[in-house]
């Protein structure tokens, strides 16, 4: 696996996203700048400037036309991917920690921070995937998280549900149209916050990462936990790889948080687990600080990680990665091949 080091950010990375084609990588950081890179060679295509605070989150619509970002400056901004122009700014009373487009790019959700006098919320904005269009000022929906604030959220298949991960380790399922809470289930250890939520390609299941040192594979429809991946460090991010049945976990304790009894300092690795068997398969070193974000190329060609160290590392999978199969997987492949013949 040849890594490409993307040096363009000056502070810790907060989120990385690939576009649907997998040719572009969008990255955001506490340095208040959004960068876009070519995934194949790591060349920086451009930057999007305007936020006045740390940027916590980024997403791109499925046609790679518009970009949404959420920041500590209490705004969600919409950008023209091609020109870098800011198309729209929505103001909120608190920081925006997560944004995500639904599957057709017509809705955007934003997770707002809880602060004295303000509950944490999940807002929904109607979006026109058109750089010329006038975007609506009004929120289509506001969900107030009364129990525990949401830290992450996303849209399920058909935009049927909004799924949120909370500070208390629980996961909620809301009706995607009305915002009504359908259920809230304790999934991770109590009060160990959920730090990431990423989807399978068809958005019928997702993976959560938590400070409780585990990641879990969960169904969108019933919030049933299918799999649990156990790590030895608090996790900040988790992604599901297409093509291969793997998941990638990122985390690590910052030096300042490492007690003398914990000897895990300095182990900042992306960890690969088998999605179905839950075994750890391998680790990829490189970062000099915790991994804050990992993202899988939707075309299955590689992955990217963003660190507290300010670097984005892009990895293209090699032949060994694609060839690696368990004996029972080979059996299954052979059986399918025989069936098709």
């Amino acid at each position: 696996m040849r890594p490409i080091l993307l040096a363009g950010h000056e502070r810790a990375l907060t989120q990385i996203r690939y576009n649907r084609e997998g040719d572009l990588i969008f990255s955001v950081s506490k340095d208040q700048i959004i960068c876009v890179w070519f995934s194949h060679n790591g060349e920086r295509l451009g930057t999007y400037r305007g936020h006045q605070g740390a940027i916590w989150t980024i997403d791109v619509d499925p046609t790679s036309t518009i970009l949404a970002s959420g920041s500590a400056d209490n705004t969600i901004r919409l950008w023209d991917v091609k020109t870098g122009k800011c198309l729209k700014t929505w103001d909120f009373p608190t920081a925006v920690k997560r944004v995500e487009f639904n599957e057709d790019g017509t809705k955007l959700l934003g997770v707002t921070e809880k602060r004295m006098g303000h509950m944490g919320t999940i807002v929904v904005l109607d979006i026109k995937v058109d750089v010329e269009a006038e975007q609506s000022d009004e929120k289509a929906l506001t969900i107030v998280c009364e129990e525990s604030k949401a830290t992450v959220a996303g849209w399920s298949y058909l935009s049927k549900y909004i799924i949120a991960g909370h500070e208390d380790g629980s996961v909620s399922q809301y009706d995607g149209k009305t915002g009504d809470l359908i259920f809230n289930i304790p999934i991770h250890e109590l009060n160990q916050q959920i730090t990431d939520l990423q989807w399978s390609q068809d958005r019928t299941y997702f993976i959560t990462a938590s400070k409780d040192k585990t990641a879990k594979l969960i169904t969108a429809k019933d919030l049933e936990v299918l799999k649990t991946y156990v790590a030895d460090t608090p996790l900040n991010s988790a992604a599901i790889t297409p093509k291969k049945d793997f998941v990638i976990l990122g985390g690590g304790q910052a030096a300042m948080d490492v007690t003398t009894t914990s000897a895990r300092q300095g182990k900042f690795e992306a960890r690969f687990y088998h999605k179905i068997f839950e075994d750890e398969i391998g680790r990829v070193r490189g970062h000099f600080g915790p991994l804050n974000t990992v993202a899988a190329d939707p075309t299955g060609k590689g992955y990217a990680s963003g660190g507290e160290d300010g670097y984005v590392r892009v990895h293209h999978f090699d032949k060994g990665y694609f060839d690696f199969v368990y004996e029972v997987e080979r059996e299954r492949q052979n059986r399918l091949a025989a069936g098709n013949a």
Partner: protein
Amino acid sequence: EDEERISSADVAVVEARRRLLNEFYAWRAAQEEELDEERAVLGLPEDPVAELLEKTKPAEAAADGGAKE
């Protein structure tokens, strides 16, 4: 005898994996079918993005600027 014990442990592991793999793919197949049905009922296209991509194509060809560095 030891060898036998080891190999029967291996067989058990392999059996367990086979079961997990089959379970997961059976669940996926059911899920995919259900999703296709729901899409059909709602009158949505099979691929939610294919149509969108068609719509945005002409606009893309016109504005081939690239974000400013």
